[in-house]
């Protein structure tokens, strides 16, 4: 514990001083000559002022023969604060005298609302108590001190400023009011208006920087006005910062805003004298008021007409237009793909866990900041996810050494995405198993998020941020507020499944819709399958409950009824249905003869090391003689664990030397080092693992039998190159892989977690050895035929036994894996009409590329686009009018 603390202190001790020596000297140099303490209160000035006011009083008494009001005393005392440095100029002096003479006409009845109470001896100005609705008219007869200076700013006396709500005595300032119409975007994408309380307090200031405190806290509003300043600026030499009072939810207004709206606003100038000091300077503030009637009424009459003349033509709406243009909500518009209706729907699901519950989710949330860390192993890599969020930004610190020490990580606690509360920015960092790239924060895929966001649970972690989780059961036990039953039927679909279902939706032609009348649909859902209406009076329907629907969804035909509503009608995919309605879209029947899956016996499974437990299906695969990957697959993805045999075996009970590999790129050996493996068996490795629809989940490196030297394992570049080489070799041999079907065992069938898999093995000796002898022999024979380009006696396991059939003497497809497009080369001995189509591995037609295409004798190449083809493993099927058939496996990868 102390070591760690010490490390923190070491860092703190190591920091560079914030000021260097030259800065220090400059600072002292700037203080000028001998620093003489200047006094705030100067007796001489006080006496002169008293005498002066006494004289004026006397003169005034002589003229009016009335007792003097107390207000004069107060005024004089306040003015003493100005100090000698800030002598009022001649004009000021005259005005001051004039004002004092006319001041008795201020109404002094303190019971009256709107009266200004000025206490005599203490010189304290009290907050004026005005009504909430109407600003009183400052009744003042005669000449006012107010004037418009050469810069166009309105200069008012302290009392007149108080009429505007700005309480100042020349040294300090308080302004408190609610502001006009602060806009705020609410979670549903709509804008709501609020009236935040705005208050600034400036204390006596003197040093290089003035403390201005501002608060938005709601208070009992006693002195509020019905007019508002929009901006507050200050004019100093260095600092010309702008404070936008309007919308004070965000202070980030560009300077340009000020220039644009300045002509619509009335600038009121307030100067605050500084406390005398070496670096002190006066604070010159400008309150920019909106030209509204209530504001004009609050102005002293002398200057009111002048200002009204100047500003009354202004259309306040023009100001609001500009304001809306600069409003922060325009900066972060929501992604186009998320409409406000969807956002509104999503926000109703937001859960607001208490702090303790957040802690359980590994989120440490404070008032303004939150942090999160976790790690996940995905696709050979250890990914660390560390997030620190503050009020205004989210940081993803990377490669933190602390994180390596986090011993336990929890994949269920991994959020899928991080968004703003209004979903204006999306960080989608946890890609699902179907995704090629994984866990890349930079490569966020907005559309993917939009597609799946209904299946995710939004959790508010900060008043500005949401985490989105997959609705895992584990979380419901951690967080009380977690939606106990799943959010929607679709939420039990994995992301990958949902995507593949969505891609399989049929879009019928107008004419075909009539054919639907003959069939009763089984269910009705929206595009994202977040809500399902079951057609309960259909006696043939097997999917009367949500769970049944989830299980059967792949055997149903979803037909999109309207694109705008994104409504999907589901039909039982019976033979009659496909024949009547979807014959063009589906093969009359899924052609199961195209790919023959190998079903394993228990014995064979054991030899291949394939097991199933609560977590999912485990498939081991050896990457080298010493290293085995144990992979667990389930609906929510795959997890891989690496075990390595000791590199050096010692005699006796001395432990074997531990092999420590660098975990940065691929493997985390250290943890899973397993002694038992020393004498263990070697399992054959599947080359690909796909789900039952052919979506490639995992692609292994080919074991070429060549052992990678241990010292090379650490060499990142070497491994990378080797992997790429292996991949290339792999795809070249795609046609010869044996698909092994791994169904969910009976005892796990009720579990939502498990999913059927297809493991594609390379038929090497290790694999053949694991199979039953008969099967192995058959396979061997076919393999031989395939390799030697001869027609085989049986064609049981490999698709069409090679790349020739009948008149088709050659058939090539490249590139494979397919990106945007692919080319096929077909060589014919005789002229034929060809059907070319893409079929999924279950024999279901995906796409017809050519129908009855005439081709002469010879070799011809066609190029087809494949951009729309979903990722996965497919078959390219060519049939001739004479019944010859040839297939080739192709892998579609996202470009």
């Amino acid at each position, binding site marked *: 514990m102390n070591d760690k603390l010490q490390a923190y*202190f070491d860092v703190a001790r190591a920091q560079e001083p914030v000021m260097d020596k030259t800065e220090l*000297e400059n600072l*002292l140099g700037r203080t000028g000559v*001998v620093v003489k303490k200047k006094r705030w209160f100067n007796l001489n000035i006080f006496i002169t002022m008293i005498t002066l006011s006494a004289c004026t009083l006397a003169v005034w008494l002589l003229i009016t023969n009335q007792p003097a009001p107390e207000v004069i005393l107060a005024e004089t005392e306040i003015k003493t604060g100005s100090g000698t440095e800030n002598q009022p100029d001649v004009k000021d002096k005259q005005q001051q005298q004039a004002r004092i003479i006319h001041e008795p006409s201020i109404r002094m009845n303190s019971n009256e609302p709107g009266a200004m109470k000025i206490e005599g001896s203490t010189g304290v100005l009290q907050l004026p108590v005005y009504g909430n609705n109407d600003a009183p008219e400052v009744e003042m007869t005669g000449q006012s001190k107010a004037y418009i200076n050469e810069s166009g700013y309105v200069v008012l006396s302290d009392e007149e400023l108080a009429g505007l709500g700005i309480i100042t005595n020349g040294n300090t300032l308080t302004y408190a009011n609610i502001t006009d119409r602060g806009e705020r975007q609410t979670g549903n994408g709509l804008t709501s208006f609020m009236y935040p309380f705005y208050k600034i307090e400036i204390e006596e200031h003197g040093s290089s920087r003035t403390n201005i*405190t501002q608060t938005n806290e709601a208070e009992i509003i006693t002195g509020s006005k019905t007019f508002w300043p929009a901006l507050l600026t200050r004019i100093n030499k260095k600092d010309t910062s702008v*404070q936008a009072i309007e919308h004070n939810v965000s202070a980030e207004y560009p300077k340009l805003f000020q220039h644009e709206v300045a002509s619509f606003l009335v600038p009121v100038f307030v100067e605050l004298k500084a406390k005398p000091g070496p670096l002190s300077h006066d604070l010159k503030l400008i309150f920019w008021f909106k030209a509204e009637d209530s504001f004009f009424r609050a102005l002293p009459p002398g200057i009111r007409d002048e200002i009204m003349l100047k500003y009354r033509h202004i259309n306040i709406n023009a100001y609001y237009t500009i304001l809306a243009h600069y409003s922060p909500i325009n900066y972060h518009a929501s992604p186009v793909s998320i409409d406000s209706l969807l956002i509104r729907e999503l926000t109703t699901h937001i859960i607001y866990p208490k702090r303790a519950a957040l802690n359980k989710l590994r989120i440490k949330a404070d008032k303004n900041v939150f942090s999160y860390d976790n790690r996940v192993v995905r696709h050979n890599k250890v990914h660390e996810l560390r997030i620190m969020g503050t009020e205004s930004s989210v940081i993803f610190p990377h490669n933190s050494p602390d994180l390596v020490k*986090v011993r336990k990580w929890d994949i269920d606690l991994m959020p899928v995405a991080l968004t703003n509360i209004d979903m204006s920015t999306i960080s989608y960092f946890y890609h699902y198993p179907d995704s090629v790239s994984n866990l890349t924060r930079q490569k966020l895929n907005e559309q993917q998020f939009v597609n799946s966001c209904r299946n995710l649970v939004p959790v508010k972690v900060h008043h500005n941020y949401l985490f989105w989780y997959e609705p895992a059961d584990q979380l419901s036990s951690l967080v009380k507020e977690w939606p106990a039953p799943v959010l929607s039927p679709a939420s039990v679909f994995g992301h990958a499944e949902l995507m593949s279902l969505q891609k399989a939706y049929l879009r019928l032609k107008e004419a075909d819709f009539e054919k639907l009348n003959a069939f009763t649909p089984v269910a009705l859902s929206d595009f994202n399958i977040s809500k399902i209406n079951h057609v309960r009076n259909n006696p043939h329907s097997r999917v009367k409950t949500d769970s049944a629907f989830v299980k059967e969804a792949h055997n149903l035909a979803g037909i999109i009824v309207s694109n705008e509503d994104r409504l999907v009608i589901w039909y039982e995919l019976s033979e009659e249905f496909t024949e009547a309605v979807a014959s063009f879209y589906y093969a009359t029947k899924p052609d199961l003869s195209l790919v023959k899956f190998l079903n394993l016996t228990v014995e064979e499974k054991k030899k291949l090391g394939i097991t199933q437990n609560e977590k999912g299906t485990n498939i081991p695969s050896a990457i080298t003689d010493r290293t085995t990957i144990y992979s667990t697959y389930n609906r929510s993805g795959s997890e891989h664990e690496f075990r390595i045999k000791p590199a050096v075996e010692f005699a006796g009970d001395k432990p074997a030397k531990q092999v420590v590999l660098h975990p940065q790129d691929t493997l985390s050996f250290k943890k899973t080092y397993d002694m038992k493996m020393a004498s263990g068996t070697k399992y054959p490795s599947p080359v690909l693992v796909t789900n039952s629809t052919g979506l490639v989940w995992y692609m292994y490196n080919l074991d070429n039998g060549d052992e990678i030297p241990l010292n090379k394992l650490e060499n990142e570049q070497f491994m990378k190159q080797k992997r790429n080489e292996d991949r290339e070799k792999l795809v070249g041999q795609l046609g010869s892989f044996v698909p092994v079907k791994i169904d969910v065992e009976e005892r796990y069938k009720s579990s939502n977690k498990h999913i059927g898999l297809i493991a594609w093995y390379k038929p090497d000796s290790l694999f053949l050895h694991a199979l039953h002898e008969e099967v192995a022999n058959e396979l061997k024979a076919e393999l031989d035929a395939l390799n030697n380009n001869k027609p085989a006696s049986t064609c049981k396991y490999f698709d069409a036994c090679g790349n020739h059939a009948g008149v088709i003497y050659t058939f090539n497809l490249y590139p494979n894996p397919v990106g945007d497009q692919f080319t096929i080369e077909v060589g014919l001995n005789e002229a034929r009409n060809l059907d070319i189509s893409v079929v999924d591995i279950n024999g279901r037609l995906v796409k017809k590329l050519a129908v009855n295409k005439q081709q002469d004798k010879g070799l011809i190449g066609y190029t087809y686009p494949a951009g729309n083809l979903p990722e996965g493993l497919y078959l390219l099927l060519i049939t001739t009018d004479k019944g010859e058939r040839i297939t080739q496996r192709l892998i579609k990868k996202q470009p």
Partner: protein
Amino acid sequence: MEPTRARQQYFMTLYEPLHARLCRFVQTLVWDKEEAKDIVSETILVTYENVENVRDNDALLGYMFSVASNLVNRKLRRKKFWGWFDPASAQTKRDTSGSESSLMRYELNLALHKLPQKQREALVWYEVSGLTMEQIAGLHHMSIEGVKSSISRARKALAKQLEWKEELSINTKGVWYER
């Protein structure tokens, strides 16, 4: 030599050995660089004005640290962030992503703010600024034993704040630290 210059030099000789320690104290507790700089310069100026009253080195240290401590505490007590928007300082505020050490400093800063004022100060003075127990005792008007115990309490509390990451996997109750 003119009197101002002499005065400055006198002040500098007294102050210079303290500078780094003072800066570290302020920087550890105030995250924003600009604000820290403000506080340091204000402390220097206040001391410079009164340098005649402070005659020896130890007294200067006490004076400066108490001034700085007052300023820092005043800053921390103002919970509301004042309102001028300054793009440059906003940049520095967000710049926590940098190196690991700055992240650590940020964490330390956050954790320190959770401690009571006297403990926080005593700990930072002792560990970061390198003040002696006696000096801290003088500054806080308490006995050396008192200082010792408050430093050790602060250490424990701080460790608790900072250790939550480590104890994630051990603590099953879901309570990482007390507030």
